[in-house]
């Protein structure tokens, strides 16, 4: 049945956007209510942590390592031109801890984990598996949503630290190939410019990115409609929307961190 344009307050798209905002707000509120309510699905949380963490390791290792090498290679010539090649480890340290590590990890996780959650829950929704859980007296929100969101929230900071380390290792290999710097000396230089606030800011941001990826993926999957087409849409929207939110959060986080650092 086609709706008349007069039935919308603004337009179909604008109305849908505001309805989505209200709906996602309710979804998040429900998450926090269910999070502290029994039963706690510890076994499933651990399983999801494994899915989010261990199964993303290869992709994150590869991406972090390559970015580390490429970033170092691209940064060297201008630093050499200014006679500041010795600052390279510090530059890499600051760049990875403050921005590249958290952001790259979050974007990879949004693509891999977010789409996976959106597609999995979307598929369960359209094949009535979520309803089946509901009628068999098991709370599907608790079992499917809470476990996944907790897993992404917990695992993202760990993955971020890992990605940062691997990226810096990639960078070290490039530095070592050119200047025969030792590993200890390289990391000593790299971390000399990184403050405690930088590390904590990255960890806290990653918690938020993880939560965003989990909640958006689950929300899109849980509300999937229209069969297989809907599953594809759910996965796609999970990625696009969580990436958009991650960039928005990054902008806010940078402002807050700079304000704390007095920059």
């Amino acid at each position, binding site marked *: *049945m086609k709706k008349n344009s007069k039935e919308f307050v603004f337009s179909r798209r604008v109305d849908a956007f505001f309805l989505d905002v209200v709906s996602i707000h309710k979804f998040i509120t429900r998450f926090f209510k269910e999070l502290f309510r029994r*039963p706690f699905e510890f076994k499933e949380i651990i399983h999801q942590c494994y899915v989010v963490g261990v199964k993303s390791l290869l992709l994150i290792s590869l991406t972090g390592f390559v970015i580390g090498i490429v970033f170092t290679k691209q940064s060297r010539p201008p630093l050499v031109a200014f006679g500041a090649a010795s600052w390279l480890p510090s530059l890499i340290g600051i760049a990875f801890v403050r921005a590249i590590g958290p952001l790259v990890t979050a974007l990879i996780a949004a693509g891999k984990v977010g789409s996976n959650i959106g597609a999995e829950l979307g598929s*369960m929704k359209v*094949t*009535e*598996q979520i*309803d*089946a*859980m*509901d*009628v*068999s*007296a*098991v*709370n599907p929100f608790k079992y499917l949503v809470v476990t996944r969101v907790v897993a992404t929230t917990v695992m993202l900071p760990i993955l971020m630290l890992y990605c940062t380390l691997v990226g810096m290792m990639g960078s070290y290999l490039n530095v070592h190939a050119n200047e025969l710097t030792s590993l200890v000396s390289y990391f000593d230089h790299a971390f000399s410019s990184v403050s405690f606030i930088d590390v904590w800011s990255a960890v806290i941001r990653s918690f938020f990115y993880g939560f965003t990826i989990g909640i958006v993926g689950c929300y899109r999957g849980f509300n999937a409609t229209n069969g297989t087409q809907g599953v594809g849409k759910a996965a796609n929207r999970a990625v696009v929307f969580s990436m958009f939110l991650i960039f928005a959060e990054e902008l806010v986080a940078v402002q807050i961190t700079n304000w704390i650092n007095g920059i």
Partner: protein
Amino acid sequence: MKYNIQQGESRDIVISVSDLHISFGRLAVLKGIDLEVYKGENFVVLGRSGSGKSVLIKTIAGLLKPDKGIVNVLGLQVDKLKVHDLQKLRLKMGFIFQSSALYDSMTIRENLEFSLVRNFKHMTAREVLKAVEEVLDAVGLREKINEMPSELSGGQIKRIGIARTLIIRPEIMLYDEPTAGLDPITCTEINQLINEVQSRYNTTSIIITHDLTCAKTTGTRIALLQDGNFIRMGSFTDVFDPGDSRVKSFYDYNFIQ
């Protein structure tokens, strides 16, 4: 709750629905349904695709909320129940979905255990396994215990769907198109299984179907749903009055004269 039916016989009402209205947008699907299902009977709801049969049992199971009207199951008004109470009630209800809706990432054993281990925490692992094997025996598929749903045929998936609900020993079984998409021989087996379940576990069932053979084989009473309301209700011979053109279209559709 007691109720006097036509013959003056007094029987317990397990499910009662009165003046049930449900719409999706402008589309009114159910327009004032009244229904009473008695203990131990197989009540069949017949109707064309899109007539609102599945909406009716999903409302009874508490998956959909009525726009208007009352749905009582075992004396409890379903749409007024709190989440915890609804979950308790659902332990007395089994719902078999049209697609069976088995959890495709779990083995058959995990599918069957899923509700049991979460709702009956006092059960030991051995007791759970025994319960799984028992229901798999009841549906004749014990050897499939460690297989994945994707490895089973359509008929086997339906049987496992029934086993998954039987494992919690429900008082009520809600079947949504149990024979849809199956070959005639498998349909006959599923119909027999529905009758076996009813006699062995003394369940009360609502069977949603558009298959006349299923309705005739399994139904104690039959209701024909059309345009959002029941147009006929009673035994198979009462409902299928050849003189009624609305009913005759069903005969023609099912190639049974």
